[in-house]
């Protein structure tokens, strides 16, 4: 059984901070993200309303979780998906390994998923002969360097371009002294695309699992989740139970908070929400529309739910 890796947080932080130039680089980067986030927030007049709404939706959903999970299962099955339930990391990993083995799949590509990190799924599968390729740039960098992600949004934020050049040189034989981001991104693309093309299974996480429709919403800004979800014939989506949401219209308000809006992606069904998010974050008129739609949809469902909750059992 695979034991999840642990990190001695305080000691690791002390080690990181002792390298002053690195710490300053990181601090500058983090503050730039904070400023980018503030700038984005300032462009969306309903930002705080979105946040309150998101909290309310989340609280509501968590307090009716069992109902929404069952509704999601029924909806997803109607769409032709198979739904498996796992009660812990070990069972989750067993189920994934079993699905892969039943399909004879040996090459898995995956997009970033904190759930599979928590379950240490990659190591579990690799120990069983599956080649796992992370397709998120930061996650892939960490995989090549045999490190867990350092942050849930930016897995390799702690690495400088020079660090990444070293990691790629070791893994791909690229120029260790060329830390130009365009060059590095190109190296990654060349090596990862080949693995994506020969993959026989794809795995993604989920930002939302929509109970009403059985849809999975995955927010991506690199396009790698599109590839992981849509290129291989077999797709596995690993969803934490707390990712459930009542209705499609309630999801955009929860995905409106990103430090930088992603580029528009060619959309499949799972991406429609993410490009909606990009619009919401960019343009005030359409974000108002999104907010209005979310609010009204939420209100009607909220009234229904509170009414049914008030009825005696």
């Amino acid at each position, binding site marked *: 059984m695979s034991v999840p890796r642990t990190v001695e947080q*305080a000691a690791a932080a002390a080690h990181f901070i002792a390298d002053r130039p690195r710490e300053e680089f990181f601090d500058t980067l983090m503050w730039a993200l904070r400023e980018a986030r503030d700038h984005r927030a300032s462009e969306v007049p309903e930002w705080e309303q979105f946040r309150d709404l998101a909290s309310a939706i989340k609280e509501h959903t968590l307090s009716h979780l069992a109902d929404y999970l069952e509704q999601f299962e029924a909806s997803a099955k109607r769409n032709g998906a198979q739904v498996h339930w796992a009660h812990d990391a070990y069972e989750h990993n067993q189920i994934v390994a079993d699905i892969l083995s039943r399909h004879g799949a040996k090459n898995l590509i995956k997009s970033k998923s904190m759930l599979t990190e928590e379950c240490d799924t990659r190591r579990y599968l690799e120990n069983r002969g599956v080649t796992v390729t992370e397709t998120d740039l930061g996650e892939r960098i960490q995989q090549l360097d045999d490190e867990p992600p350092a942050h849930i949004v930016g897995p390799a934020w702690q690495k400088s371009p020079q660090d990444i050049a070293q990691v790629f040189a070791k893994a791909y034989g690229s120029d260790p002294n060329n830390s130009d981001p365009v060059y590095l991104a190109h190296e990654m693309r060349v090596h990862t695309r080949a693995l994506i093309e020969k993959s026989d299974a794809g795995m993604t996480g989920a930002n939302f699992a929509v109970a009403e429709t059985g849809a999975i919403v995955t927010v991506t800004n690199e396009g790698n989740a599109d590839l992981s979800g849509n290129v291989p014939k077999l797709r596995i989506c690993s969803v934490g139970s707390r990712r459930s949401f009542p209705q499609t219209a309630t999801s955009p308000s929860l995905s409106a908070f990103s430090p930088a809006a992603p580029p528009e992606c060619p959309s499949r069904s799972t991406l429609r929400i993410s490009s909606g998010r990009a619009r919401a974050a960019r343009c005030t008129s359409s974000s108002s529309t999104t907010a209005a739609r979310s609010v009204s949809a939420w209100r009607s469902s909220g009234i229904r739910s509170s009414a049914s909750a008030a009825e005696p059992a």
Partner: protein
Amino acid sequence: MQVGLVIPCYVDVFYPEVGIATLELLERLGVEVEYPFDQTCCGQPMANSGCESDSRATEEHFIRLFSRFDYVVIPSGSCTHHVRNKFIAAPPSPEREHVSQHVCDLVEFLHDVLKVKEFPWGEFPHKVALHNSCSAIRGIYMASMSERVHDPVFNKPKALLEGVKGIKFVDFARHDECCGFGGTFAATEEAVSARMGYDKLGFIQASRPEYIVSSDMSCLMHLQGCARRLGSEIKFLHLSQILNGDRA
């Protein structure tokens, strides 16, 4: 109006002059203040460390001592935040509700209850960097939060200090970021805590103030430790000391 005065443990032990300034200031403003001598810690360090049930006896003791007052005043944002918003180890009772609903940070009591505008006995012709603690800003809303970009800007500690003759404020970068203290965080995450303190001090000192002033002595204690290690000459004062008429 009967006011019960709470002096936080670390103020009692390390900065008694801040407790004295708070008491003198309230009495100067004609408030009838009582300081119950049996008081202890409010239980915040235990509750914040996940030992909620261990803070029950402390919270019950606090409620026994302070539920008879019209207002409970504490010169500390984090203790106020704890008593107001997280006082749940003691079982619910009308006394607990009363204490939680009538506890005030000193700033809130002066600004919102007494509505003091001027401190004519005060004079402080110095350049001051005002630091508001996270608990004061995000726990009990004594100042607007820079991350809530659409909210109106307000700053109650600053509004009070502006009632003192001669005081000048300096602006500094990342003005409402945490100083790194964070109570037990300073002990469990020493490296991060210290780095945050040095960063904060760096941003503040770049604006060349003579004093760093706060309504939370715990932040000042942390920053003072950082300043001492750097050999910095910068001086520290609690807001109550300036409002009470300390000259330097």
